[in-house]
């Protein structure tokens, strides 16, 4: 039940963030620092989420089949594959490595 609460708060914050954009003065768009931070934060969070999902296991760091998924996804992206193909490549690599007995 606790999870429901955080889900609903996250939903409310997501909508309010979008809505605030429609009500703030357009002048804010000219503030390079705010724009820049919103941009760096998006990159930083996505990089962090990638790493956490690839090597973290609780509070430990492990190298397992997920590293294979990371490599497969990078290759697919480099070959300009669409999003869904990239995701499937990641899943297939991890599943295959497990069948082969690693991680």
């Amino acid at each position, binding site marked *: 039940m606790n999870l429901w609460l955080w889900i609903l708060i996250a939903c409310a914050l*997501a909508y309010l963030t979008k809505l605030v954009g*429609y009500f703030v003065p357009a002048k804010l768009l000219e503030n390079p620092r705010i724009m820049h931070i919103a941009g760096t934060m998006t990159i930083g969070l996505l990089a962090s989420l990638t790493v956490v999902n690839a090597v*973290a296991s609780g509070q430990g760091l492990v190298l397992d089949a997920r590293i294979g998924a990371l490599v497969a996804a990078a290759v697919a992206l480099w070959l300009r594959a669409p999003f869904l193909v990239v995701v499937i490549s990641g*899943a297939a690599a991890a599943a295959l490595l497990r069948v082969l007995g690693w991680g």
Partner: protein
Amino acid sequence: MSTSSASMKLRESPAFKIALSLSIATGLYGVSFGALAVASGFDFWQTMVLSLLLFSGGSQFAFIGVVAGGGSGVAAMTASALLGLRNGIYGMQINAMLRPGGWKRYVSAHVTIDESTATASGQSDPDEQRRGFWTAGIGIFILWNIFTAIGALAGDAMGDPKQWGLDGAAVAAFLALLWPRLKGREPWAIAAACALATILAVPFVPSGVPILVAAVVAGVIGWFSHARMDEGLEPDVDPYAEKHQREHGGKK
């Protein structure tokens, strides 16, 4: 052009066509969100509420990603909210572009995401901008939710998610969301710094918190660096990529 663009038929509108194909492509990967959410321990309705009400791919994946890694609900909520900050900037851009009034403003806020913003800002004619934004926004909303439901139901029937490599799918999904933003040296440096900060933080703080440590690092870098102002803020899709390639390629 002599004909008024307002009277242009919808199927002749380039923005409409692009928005429609983008809706289908984006909607389809709702399957991966639905399946991953269920594999991460969310039930069907929690998964659906995230797609219906949160409705921002990156933030949705962030929320379930933190929980899947053993993080707390509050850490998941924080990561999701921080990742959604860019939508506020998109809101400002769309508001300046389309000036929606009354109730339309509240609806357009909900469908202000990477894809709808990218489709609108790629057009120069105001009517085309409007068509592009609404078609992509509403089209993706409908398809994203349908395919989330399909993914969640399929994920439920799949059994052990690891056997199917679904944890690998999550890694791939985050990399795919990050990838289009890594244009140039500074974005790479930010990504590397934040990845390193995350790895260093993992053993010392509770699950989910390393992501927030990385957010702080990214915020500090953003505060002190004054390079190009829109890095990372270009929506993660370029619906006009092919057109751009044709135009630039032709000149070479």
